[in-house]
């Protein structure tokens, strides 16, 4: 009896994983796989969609612009996220719980709500413009919306909580005594920070940057709502091919390029930083 039971127990782990595997294979992997397959057939096997993507400067420019925007947003997220993560590390746990609300609440609020808020703030009749007009600082409303500026602000607002979580999860594990030791040996607090604390926080910067960059590169909502004509990104190109041009194979080819970029970055993150660093050390 015992042997039957222990056999059942060893099989149990596979039975437990089976439903989620079947589900994801059928509703996640298979649709994407069969979609990407269409990019190689039209109707016979061909690479013409990839050649088109490569030869038309317009498309390469979109890919380049997407990566540039993602890079810029990642840098801004580090600059704004680092002080906050450091603050979270410094304060007492009661203060931290309160500060966390400031990060978690926007994180769990619909991205559409946040984009709407930015439209209200930055719009032609928006809060900034109407305030500046009333104060007499400007006489004509500024163009703050539907350009690179508004896309960057909207994206950083979306990405910042992810960056803070990654940074904080690594900083939380840094032993404060190492910094104290440096100071007691005569290091200036600033030197102690630069030479002792900062290097130990770099895995968090790496993990956060990769997470944020991956999210930014595939982002659709913010560029579509806050961007102008010049801010076409890869995901908008895909949407355009699906809904307007109804060119599935070409849309699939662009999606495949985006997927490859994402997977390469995720692999780098996973290899050098470990999956733990990326998902907040839950595992």
């Amino acid at each position, binding site marked *: 009896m015992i042997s039957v039971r222990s056999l*059942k127990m060893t099989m*149990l*782990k596979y039975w*437990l*994983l089976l*439903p*989620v595997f079947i*589900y*994801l294979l059928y*509703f*996640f992997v*298979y*649709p*994407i796989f069969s*979609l990407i397959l269409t990019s190689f057939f039209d109707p016979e096997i061909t690479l013409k969609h990839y050649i088109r993507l490569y030869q038309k400067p317009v498309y390469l420019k979109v890919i380049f612009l997407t990566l540039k925007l993602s890079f810029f947003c990642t840098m801004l997220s580090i600059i*704004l996220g680092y*002080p*906050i993560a450091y603050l979270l590390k410094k304060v007492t746990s009661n203060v931290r719980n309160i500060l966390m*609300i*400031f*990060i978690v609440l*926007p994180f*769990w*609020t*619909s991205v*559409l*709500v*946040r984009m*709407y*808020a930015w*439209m*209200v703030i930055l719009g032609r009749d*928006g809060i900034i413009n*109407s305030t500046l007009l009333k104060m007499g600082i400007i006489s004509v409303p500024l163009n703050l919306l539907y350009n690179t500026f508004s896309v960057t602000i909207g994206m950083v*607002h979306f990405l*910042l*909580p992810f960056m803070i979580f990654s940074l904080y999860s690594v900083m939380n594990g840094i032993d404060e005594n190492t910094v104290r030791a440096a*100071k*007691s040996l*005569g290091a*200036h*607090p600033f030197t102690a920070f630069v030479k002792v604390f900062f290097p130990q926080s770099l895995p968090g910067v790496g993990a956060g940057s990769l997470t944020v960059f991956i999210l930014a*590169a*595939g982002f*659709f*909502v913010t560029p579509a*709502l806050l961007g102008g004509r010049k801010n076409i990104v890869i995901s908008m190109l*895909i*949407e355009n091919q699906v809904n307007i041009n109804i060119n599935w194979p070409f*849309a*699939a080819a662009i999606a495949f390029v*985006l*997927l490859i970029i*994402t997977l390469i970055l*995720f692999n780098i993150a*996973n290899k050098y930083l470990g*999956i733990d660093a990326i*998902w*907040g050390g*839950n595992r």
Partner: protein
Amino acid sequence: MKNEKMPSPKISDPNKNIWFNLFFYCLCTLILLFLVLPLFIVIPISFSSSEFLQFPPEELSLKWYKNFFGSDIWMRALLNSVKIALMSSILATILGVTAALALTRYRFKGKNLIFSFLISPMIIPVIIIAIGAFFQFSRLRLIGNIYTIVLAHTVISIPIVLITISASLQVFDRSLEYAALSLGASPFVTFFKITFPIIRPGVISGALFAFITSFDEVVISFFLSTYRSITLPRHMWSSLREQIDPTIAASSSLLILTAVFMLIFVAILAKRAENMRA
């Protein structure tokens, strides 16, 4: 002699530190305000009586809430979103709990790889998942009902549930289970009498996160929903593109309120789980 040579850190920098700290705290305040202020701008606008944007509003009214609750399309969108989020959160929770149990309890070859696969819907751009689902469901001629949206939303909710529940299983004291098993309880009984009650706060938190993920999701709905199966974020999207009417502010405020309630609930659950462990 030694003491004279050693520079004392306490004497060298009190002045500099004050200025630096002041700068640091001001900077942090500004960044935190950047994060939350946009949310709090939406709420007063939803109570404005004007058609046009006024901040702060000159006169208060509930006009936009009446508009929201009195409109067929907004109500249908709300109802569809609630239905979809409920179904998707139940489905994702069941799949997430079973997977989390397997991954935290047993040894596997390539466990990291399995985990990477299970959380990959979180990493792969939603637009790819969305057009994949759109492609598949339109080939099967299934576009236009809410169940396709449920199925696609569940894909992106599974990683969130899995991560939340794994975290609560990790701090679980397994000797309680061994005790039940050694006293002759079957694994099945042990799970429902011992394991589940203990991890229940984590499971409920996971379900709540899955609910809000689906409730707020817009890209998948953008492709899969039609007039009949429209969701709240999808309708907000169209309204944002066409005209910015304060009804969106009313709907946005309700979404913020949902997030606030959910977070309060999750905080209570976390507290309860902590007490249980103590």
